[in-house]
């Protein structure tokens, strides 16, 4: 099951004692969203009826042969370049092992000659994580084990759907450079952002088009040793990446503290229980007997192809953050959310159209979480200019914005249709002075030392003004005038 159980930030997470350090490497599988599979013409589609997107080749029938999907190689090389990798002529290799949902009983992957190697990625927090390799391989089918505890060992029977068999994957292997659970989440988040910016995958962890396995070990802080690691599988969301790593690291520390040590094994993250459990125990280290795939020829990109790939790479999240931060006058980390949502270009265009950068960021972060809808950068800029020019209060701006997203109308038209006339500040001054004169007791309490009571009275005066202006007054301006009367 790939459904995320998001426990939110309120769940208590174990803390890592200061004298311990995490050593984490991530293996991220990304399903490339090519039209067809890696080695045949079958549709690469999620959610079809079982065993409908299959042919002799992706079923591994005797006599069938693979033919490399050029689009998959191109996607792989684009992601490689975006991850600052060296892109080399890749050689496909057979990884020999047996599993019922793997039709040929070997996986066509890459071994000693991956397409991409030796790259890096900077997280939004500015931490550089080195990338060992990003290689092309095929996905397996999907088993559903019926009966028992849901694993193959105890099942009464198993159903296999080969629709996913042969779907192109890119496996991105990080170096063990990650030192905290937060860094791991930031790495996955950044990688996902790059994948989405390139458009090479929809990278949905809940549908399995992005899958993360974490190799976790711990060591005394300051040491450079590499201790026994465990591979954690079945991590189904970015927040689970952090939780699973944190829990697993704590398990290792507890073992060391009690004089024991972890054994090298594959473990499964149990989101409900908030712990990892041992997976299928492997008595022997698996020997995959790799050798070059004789049915495929090496993938040698020409200089022209590489140049075209470089030219096709869009502005990536890191550069988007920098550009937005600069344009809006904010910290780069504060641009993360907008970049992550894919709205950086929109924000930059709105700023270029004359909108105040700070307000652009505030509205995108707080009021446009569900998307910009029919808003255009220009119409958005016009609205913000009305707001910063004092023509609309922030409450009114929000209301107009919501309608613009829905209908695509112009800010001025919607504001006028709603009767949001600009309040003259002088008119407001007069109204407030009259209100103070008519409510001397309340005014005295507003100016008094009882802070709570003063706050209550601030609410009284603001409320009266809003009532009188039918909500057209700007609450902030009212507060400013009240304070200036009190202090002045």
């Amino acid at each position, binding site marked *: 099951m790939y459904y995320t159980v998001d426990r939110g930030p309120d769940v208590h997470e174990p803390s890592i004692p200061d004298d311990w350090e995490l050593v984490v490497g991530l293996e991220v599988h990304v399903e490339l969203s090519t039209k067809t599979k890696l080695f045949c013409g079958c549709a690469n589609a999620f959610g079809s009826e079982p065993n409908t997107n299959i042919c002799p080749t992706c079923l*591994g029938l*005797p*006599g069938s042969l693979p033919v490399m999907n050029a689009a998959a190689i191109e996607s792989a090389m684009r992601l490689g370049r975006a991850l600052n990798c060296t892109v080399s002529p890749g050689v496909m290799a057979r990884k020999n092992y*047996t599993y019922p949902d793997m039709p040929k009983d070997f996986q066509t992957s890459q071994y000693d000659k991956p397409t991409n190697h030796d790259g890096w990625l900077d997280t939004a927090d500015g931490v550089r994580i080195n990338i060992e390799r990003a290689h092309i391989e095929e996905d397996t089918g999907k088993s559903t084990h019926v009966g028992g505890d849901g694993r193959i060992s105890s099942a009464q029977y198993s159903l296999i759907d080969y629709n996913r068999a042969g779907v192109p994957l890119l496996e991105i292997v990080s170096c063990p450079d990650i030192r905290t659970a937060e860094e791991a989440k930031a790495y996955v988040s950044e990688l996902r952002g790059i994948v989405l910016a390139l458009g090479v995958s929809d990278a949905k962890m809940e549908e399995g088009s992005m899958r993360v396995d974490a190799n976790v070990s711990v060591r005394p802080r300051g040491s450079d040793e590499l201790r026994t690691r465990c591979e954690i599988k079945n991590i189904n969301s970015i927040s689970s990446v952090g939780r699973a790593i944190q829990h697993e690291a704590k398990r290792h520390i507890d073992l060391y503290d009690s004089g024991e040590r972890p054994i090298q094994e594959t473990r499964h993250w149990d989101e409900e229980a908030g712990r990892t459990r041992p997976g299928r125990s492997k008595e022997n280290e698996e020997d995959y007997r790799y*050798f070059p795939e*004789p*049915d495929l*020829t090496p993938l040698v990109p020409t200089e022209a192809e590489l140049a075209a790939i470089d030219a096709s790479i869009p502005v990536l999240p890191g550069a988007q953050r920098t550009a937005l931060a600069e344009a809006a006058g904010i910290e780069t980390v504060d641009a993360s959310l907008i970049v992550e949502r894919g709205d950086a270009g929109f924000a930059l265009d709105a700023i270029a159209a004359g909108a105040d950068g700070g307000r652009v960021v505030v509205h995108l972060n707080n009021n446009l979480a569900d998307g910009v809808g029919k808003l255009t950068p220009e119409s958005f800029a016009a609205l913000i200019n009305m707001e910063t020019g004092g023509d609309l209060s922030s409450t009114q701006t929000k209301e107009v914005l919501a309608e613009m997203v829905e209908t695509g109308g112009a800010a001025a038209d919607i504001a006028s249709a709603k009767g949001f006339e600009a309040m003259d500040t002088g008119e407001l001054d007069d109204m407030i002075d009259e209100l103070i004169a008519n409510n001397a007791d309340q005014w005295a309490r507003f100016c008094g030392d009882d802070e709570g009571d003063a706050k209550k009275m601030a609410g009284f005066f603001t409320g009266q003004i809003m009532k009188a202006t039918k909500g057209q007054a700007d609450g902030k301006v009212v507060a400013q005038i009240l304070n200036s009367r009190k202090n002045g």
Partner: protein
Amino acid sequence: MSENVAHPAAFGDAAAIASSVAAGERTASAVVDEHLARIDEHEDAVHAFNTLMADEARAAAAAVDERIAAGETPGRLAGVPVALKDNMCTRGVATTCSSKILEGWKPPYTATVIDRLVAEGAIPVGKTNLDEFAMGSSTENSAFGATKNPYDLDKVPGGSSGGSAAAVAAGFAPVSLGSDTGGSIRQPASLCGVVGVKPTYGAVSRYGLIAFASSLDQIGPFTTSVADAALMYEVIAGDDPMDSTAAPQPALPVSSKLGAGVDGLRVGIITEMAGDVIEGISADVLARLRAAADALAAAGATVDEVSVPSTVYGLPAYYMVAPAEASSNLARFDGVRYGLRADGTNTAAMNTASRTAGFGAEVKRRIMLGTYALSAGYRDAFYGKAQQIRTRITEDFDRAYESFDVLLSPASPSTAFALGDKTADPLTMYLNDVCTIPSNLSGHPAMSVPFGVGDDGLPIGVQVLAPMMGEVVMFQVAAALEQAMASDAASVGGA
């Protein structure tokens, strides 16, 4: 001498049949019926076929006849019966590799080569017997019983494409297809007195050929004449989008120089296979090799000996590379999706039980050998070293071709041996391919041309080897040998 049922081209060779059918002198249906009658008469003795496609063949022949009646062009192989090695997929027709593991499996698709033959009007008449998964040199390693040599029913036809070689020698079909991984076309061609061609690796699509060793396997024809072999080659060769290892070029025009003679061509006899370096090549085979060289010299070729030193390491290198690839290729026969499934208490036990029951001894031996050759800690010493030898052999051949247009060697170290003679000792059996294996390792083309008989009166073939994509000159020289034999009284089974 025991019974001889050989009758190659019993009803004419492929070229003769195609032209007479196209001209309306006889119908494809009549041609097919003649062949089916001959099969009916002698198949029990020869056992060339695993599956006979009599009904399908009659229907296909009727369709060809209708096309001719409708004035359509019937194709270059109109009405020509063709026998297919039973490791090539035929849609809806059992394809067994002579293994119990594929019991009951009918492929949902057809191999490219067969589609191409049928498109030219050829009529598949049956699926021929082979050593299980093409592993063997006598067609005795078949789950369905051995095939007999039509020239002597007590002898083997060679292998692994023994059924396809025997079918042509017995006159069951004028042409057939085999596959050659280490000599599986050329050695049985030699033993059955027919022409057998292993094209350049990549010249012919492997799509639909059930893989034994993917980097070595190549499909080729068995025929009764060099001209028929050239015709078959031209029909089946050429690029195929379904096979990434297929050379991106059309079929070479191998028929173009069949009558050109060999005047001025440089012919090199491979020293290592012409005497004492590689042991076990019988005297009568070497005598026929010398006779072939003499015939070419008499026809104007320059003949000399040339050393291709690393060919002596071909056999050990082959028995690392081929089983290694086979161990991976055959992993899919696990009882999960098709073929034989034996009961087991869990999936792994079912896999093991299915393979134990489904694979024969030689297949199991090679899977184990190949698994070992690829294992961690051994891969570099075995598989890795074998790949280095492979590169050396290719380089040695290429060097020889700087001075020679073609090379000559025996195709098989001996004439057909008795059934059961070599089954006890696998190594003795492996030595049958000592002359043919180097071409598979290098990828170069090679073919066996009948060139007389041995002391026992049984056929002997001479192997003509050529550089990469050198099929035109290879066929040219083969045609010259055939012509030289035409007047030789030692020719067996001839007209």
